[in-house]
């Protein structure tokens, strides 16, 4: 990239730091996917990548391009908003599908439904 030449050292270092932190946190989340044993425990791990991992990488991106273009570049915040609003939908869908299947199979590890399972999501 030709643009990197004009990026001052402090900004380059800070951007690199943000990217490394974000990548490390996301990697830890992926490791969790590997190390955790049950489905329900596994679902927790990727949320590291969708919270601090994402925020840190986006902060790095905003910083880098704000300095390069000498104006505030903040539209990265939209990515954060959309990821945060949509992650619960996917996670709840997965968790509820697993719960439904486990209850059907009569697996004792999951709590039984007291009454019939409510199918309408909130909100």
């Amino acid at each position: 990239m030709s643009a990197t030449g004009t990026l001052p050292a402090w900004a380059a270092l800070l951007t690199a730091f943000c990217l490394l932190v974000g990548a490390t946190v996301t990697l830890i989340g992926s490791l969790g996917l590997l190390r955790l044993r049950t489905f329900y425990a596994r679902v927790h791990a990727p949320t590291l990548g969708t919270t601090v991992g994402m925020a840190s990488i986006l902060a790095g991106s905003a910083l880098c391009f704000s300095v390069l273009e000498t104006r505030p570049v903040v539209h990265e915040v939209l990515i954060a908003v959309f990821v945060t609003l949509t992650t619960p939908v996917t996670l709840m869908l997965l968790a509820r599908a697993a719960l439904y299947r486990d209850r059907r199979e009569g697996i004792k590890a999951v709590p039984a439904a007291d009454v019939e399972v409510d199918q309408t999501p909130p909100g």
Partner: protein
Amino acid sequence: MSWLLPYPLLSAALLVLWLLLNQSVSSGQIVLGAVLAVLASWAMAALRPEKPHIRRPGVALRLAGMVLIDILRSNIAVGRIILGSRQPGMNAGFLSIPLELRSRHGLAVLSIIITSTPGTIWVNYDAAQGTLLLHVLDLSDETAWIRLIKDRYERRLIEIFE
């Protein structure tokens, strides 16, 4: 005014979204964005969703700040469990919490808070009984989790939405 802007907050958010996407605050983009925002809010009005009432914006802001700090903290906690414990996830378990919160918008926000915080996942909500089923990665202290959800989040959400 309400026929023009049935959902003023939604329209404002859409206008900001449009300007951010185009990365410009020129008058042309503002006009175009405003027209789109009004048209979109009319489309929304045709669906007739229940209108949310945010009664305490100050509390909402404070809650947002608290949630950000909690997300950071639980990232560290979950990272420790994944890397540090020999058998990660052995303390994981389900937790059932009775909720007093009934507002659909409040519940939607609570679900976003709970799923965005690593270590807790919203599994099921029983609308008839008002009980929430969670899955928690580190369930060594059940009462602490219940206190966290009820005192820290639910109480404020009731203040904001009900």
